[in-house]
């Protein structure tokens, strides 16, 4: 078989992931380390299953980072982002500047002059969005102060790539800095204008164009078309950003934030999530495969020393800034550990620097290896932090716990189906300050509800990913209120299987539908018309002269008996003969049962109140 075929490559990568990630997880190392090790194993230095092409793969897989930022953006309300501005510019700016200056200072002391060390410092100041965010997210730490500070700094680094690219040529060894190709084409102000224009275009499209477009696509009811549209959106935004020389990840992030309030948010999340997961995995594998162990073998001391130095310097700067910005100690440490590695951008910037004679290859090549190794260290640093550092804080702490910031949707109730039925349920809950996350498949419907000011998300609740995105893992109660009977049962099964902790409350069309729920162990089912037909019946009785309270009681008694008999009958549903015999008996017994009920209420109990009642048999 041709080992260069696409299928073979796909097979190797997928197999590596499928085998190594579960093992890594089992050992408590997190998925990132698992992917990395898988990459090392299939890479040229161990099994040699993937060779030259792993670089291409890495390039392709970097798109996973873009998707990740899109997803992070989706979960971030613009208001939350606004609150982050201090960290974004203050903390982020100082981190980049501080790291660059620290490296420059070391270079000066080592007698390397100032230009080259400053360039290296700027390049190494970048951290790895992929490694840091994935590791934070996996541990549920993104919403903590340390996590959100890390995120803010990563965002700033993404932003700062553009000025750094502009600055590097001026640091060239030969003082006559040739202007770069990208910069030569257009003057600075025009470029700036283009960038602002592009961002505005993304924001405007997100606000005004995307919802109608998605609605149209949703109306076709072709699920794959929606997925295609979601991917198209992310790819399109990335392309636009690259066109104006901005980081694609940043553009995707902006697009995500703009769509954070959209009713399609959960559906988009559910659609993009698997792609992001796969691509990021691929990215981590390719980083693992690309680690140049050759260089490491020839100069082990130098490389190891540089990796340690890089991590130590970055860590020190981060820790200092973290404390300066008043992060609580455990958060400052988490923040420092998560950003102490080199980033994806370093690869780009290093090759850019070589091209512009800022750095000689003899310096750049070892640095590539150092950055890759430092990335590989990230999951290990997280482990160290978790196992040995944080427990120390835990012992002295015991104080206030920070609030969740990034996750806006921690509703205890999920309502699937927001038609006439679910709508009432949702409003009742809302009026009583119980938040619910609502999913509905009818695009038009969602639109109307949104206009009425309700938060309804478009999507097919029978999709597992969508349930995840809607927060099923954290919710307590799941309300099935969709009108498609088969789907409702299917959904109940899905929820029972994947979220056994959720208590299900289901809308049942009629008796048979109710039996289906009961046979699956869903005991809280509600026949959709029972309540209103009883209300109507009671009102008719009252209109005919029955005292209102008596009609009310009669309807309630009817309901009680009927529900009880329904639950008994459900047990016999499979057995045709027994079912109909019981049904006949029940119907006969039913009315006399109701009559006795009514007769007994406030009936004989008045007899004993007069010890010698007239007409009493004993007295004659």
């Amino acid at each position, binding site marked *: 078989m041709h080992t260069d075929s696409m299928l073979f490559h796909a097979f190797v990568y997928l197999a590596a992931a499928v085998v190594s990630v579960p093992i890594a997880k089992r050992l408590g190392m997190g998925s990132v380390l698992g992917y990395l090790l898988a990459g090392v194993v299939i890479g040229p230095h161990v099994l040699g299953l993937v060779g030259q092409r792993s670089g291409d793969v890495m390039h392709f897989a970097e798109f996973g980072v873009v998707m990740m930022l899109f997803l992070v953006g989706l979960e971030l309300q613009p208001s939350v982002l606004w609150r982050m501005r201090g960290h974004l510019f203050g903390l982020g700016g100082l981190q980049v500047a501080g790291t660059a200056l620290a490296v420059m200072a070391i270079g000066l002391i080592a007698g390397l002059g100032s230009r080259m060390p400053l360039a290296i410092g700027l390049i190494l100041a970048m951290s790895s969005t992929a490694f840091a965010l994935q590791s934070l997210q996996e541990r549920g730490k993104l919403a903590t102060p340390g996590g959100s500070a890390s995120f803010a700094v990563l965002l700033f680094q993404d932003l700062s790539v553009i000025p750094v690219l502009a600055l590097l040529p001026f640091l060239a060894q030969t003082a006559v800095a040739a202007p770069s190709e990208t910069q030569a084409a257009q003057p600075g102000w025009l470029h700036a204008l283009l960038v602002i224009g592009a961002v505005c275009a993304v924001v405007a499209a997100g606000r005004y164009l995307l919802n109608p477009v998605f609605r149209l696509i949703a109306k076709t009811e072709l699920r794959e078309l929606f997925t295609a549209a979601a991917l198209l959106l992310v790819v399109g935004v990335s392309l636009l950003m690259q066109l104006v020389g901005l980081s694609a990840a940043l553009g995707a992030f902006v697009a995500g934030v703009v769509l954070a309030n959209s009713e399609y948010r959960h559906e988009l999340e559910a659609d993009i999530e698997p792609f992001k997961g796969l691509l990021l995995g691929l990215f981590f594998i390719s980083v693992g495969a690309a680690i140049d162990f050759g260089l490491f073998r020839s100069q082990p001391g130098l490389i190891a020393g540089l990796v340690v130095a890089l991590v130590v310097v970055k860590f020190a700067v981060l820790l200092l800034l973290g404390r300066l910005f008043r992060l609580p100690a455990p958060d400052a440490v988490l923040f420092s550990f998560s950003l102490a590695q080199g980033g994806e951008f370093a690869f780009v910037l290093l090759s850019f620097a070589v091209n512009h004679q800022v750095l000689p290859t003899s310096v750049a090549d070892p640095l590539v290896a150092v950055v890759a190794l430092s990335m590989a260290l990230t999951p290990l640093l997280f482990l160290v932090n978790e196992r040995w550092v944080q427990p120390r804080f835990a012992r002295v702490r015991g104080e206030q716990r920070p609030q969740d910031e990034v996750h806006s949707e921690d509703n205890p109730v999920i309502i699937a189906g927001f038609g006439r039925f679910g709508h009432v349920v949702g409003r009742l809950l809302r009026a009583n300050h119980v938040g619910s996350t609502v999913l509905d498949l009818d695009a038009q419907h969602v639109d109307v509800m949104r206009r009425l000011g309700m938060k309804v998300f478009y999507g097919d609740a029978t999709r597992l990913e969508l349930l995840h995105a809607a927060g099923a893992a954290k919710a307590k109660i799941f309300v099935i209120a969709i009108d498609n009977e088969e789907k409702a049962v299917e959904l109940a099964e899905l929820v029972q299987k994947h979220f056994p902790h959720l208590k299900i409350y289901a809308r049942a069309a009629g008796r048979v539908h109710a039996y289906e729920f009961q046979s699956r162990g869903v005991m809280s089912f509600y026949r959709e018309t029972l309540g209103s037909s009883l209300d109507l019946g009671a009102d008719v009785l009252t209109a005919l002269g029955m005292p209102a*309270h008596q009609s009310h009681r009669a309807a309630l008694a009817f309901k009680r008996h009927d529900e009880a008999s329904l639950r008994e009958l459900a047990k016999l549903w499979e057995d045709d003969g027994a079912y109909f015999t019981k049904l006949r008996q029940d119907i006969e017994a039913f009315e006399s049962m109701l009559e006795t009920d009514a007769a007994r209420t406030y009936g004989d109990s008045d007899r004993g*109140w*007069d010890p010698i009642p007239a007409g009493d048999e004993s007295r004659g």
Partner: protein
Amino acid sequence: MQSQRVLVLFAHPAVQKSRVNRRLFAAAQSVPGVTTLDLYQEYPDFQIDVRSEQARLLEHDVIVFQHPFYWYSSPALLKEWQDLVLEYGFAYGRNGTRLRGKALLNAITTGGSEEAYARTGHNYFTMRELLTPFEQTARLCGMVYLPPFVVHGAIRMTHTAEVERAADDYARVLAGLRDGRVTTETAGSFDRLNADLTALGL
């Protein structure tokens, strides 16, 4: 004395089985100038509209609770009515002065005979003693508590004539309340209002 606005709040959970109260209530409805409300008919599911009940109270001077005696007290809905409508800040407590000066009256039918409500009878306590929770409720709200209108031995009344007489008495007492002839001054010393109607000039 100018005419008093009388409100009869009637509570019987099973009027379809009532012999006496139903007749009494019909009699009340026939007295001009008396407002009547059948609570169980108005709130079959116990969802009392507190605001409108309070407004209704403000429009009247004499409040009559008409009900059968159930376990030495009122049926559940009338208790619910008290629990909800007599709010803090409205009926009692700080600034709770809205009912001040009004009169409260129980119009009750009992299964037991008059003799049964005495130390020597099997209910041991007198009606006035058993009704002290209502009396104190009135006091707390700054209302005047009138002696109750009581029809004893309601279960025993097989002859319509007896029921009719009780209904007639009831109508006369309500009219007397409306006209200001039945007050603490005129009736305060009575055990029950309907003990001696002629003494009240009715």
